[in-house]
């Protein structure tokens, strides 16, 4: 009888790390979903802004403004084709513009070697802007 004392505590201590890992995984999966949706929405809005303005500053500004609830400083973006290259530096109306973005998800306990999660999204729009 005395050998069973505290057994539940020992068992709980053994499985506690597993439970914590599962809980962490659930939080991460939820965060990933939010990040993917937010980034997809932001790239679509940014590409639309680019289609109307043909202006990289407007595109990046729109991306930063619409990427909430993500931290915009963690978002890196790319615009293709670049503003100073054809067809965007001439008459780009009718050509396509693609905005890509990636977001590095902050991982709790990342310092213990957990992998970093990078979420990416892209959207393309036909440029309507005319010089």
């Amino acid at each position: 009888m005395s050998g069973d004392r505290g057994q539940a505590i020992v068992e709980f201590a053994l499985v506690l790390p597993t439970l914590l890992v599962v809980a962490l995984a659930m939080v991460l999966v939820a965060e990933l979903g939010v990040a993917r949706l937010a980034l997809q929405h932001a790239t679509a809005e940014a590409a639309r802004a680019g289609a109307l303005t043909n202006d990289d500053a407007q595109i990046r500004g729109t991306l930063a403004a619409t990427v909430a609830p993500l931290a915009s400083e963690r978002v890196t973006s790319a615009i293709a084709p670049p503003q100073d290259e054809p067809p965007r530096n001439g008459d780009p109306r009718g050509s396509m513009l693609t905005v890509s973005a990636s977001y590095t998800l902050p991982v709790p306990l990342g310092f213990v070697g957990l992998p970093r999660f990078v979420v990416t999204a892209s959207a393309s729009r036909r440029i309507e802007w005319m010089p």
Partner: protein
Amino acid sequence: MDAVNGERGQALVIAAVLVGIGALSIVGLRLVQERVLANALAQDTGEAAVEAAAAAVADAYARHLDSVRAHVFDVPRPTADVVALLTDPATREAARAAAAEAAARNGAAFDGAVEARCAGATIEIELHHAGRLHRAALQADACSPR
């Protein structure tokens, strides 16, 4: 003693159940997320496609008006026929091709038709993508009956 021995491992059993529930929750969450994201992507793609189609129709409309203006002193004087322009196979194909290209650039395929028609003083453009109706409109004074 037997009753006490029977309690051994209860915490492990509960923990295993919790881990199982957690794993199921994660799988369910992932599945729901994939569906929500796929819906959002389809919505964005449809919007991109109809915007591209509308821009192609707008270009055709502008060219048509330019052509009419260029012959304004002809006899008889030409008038803008937007209905004929919108039913012209070339206009419809240009709109469809623009929509298809926009969809393809967004990772989807569009092989449907683009409908364009006059509605008051606007041209309405609509298409179906992934089971959704997407519409766009552009101002076209030449549409309105005089």
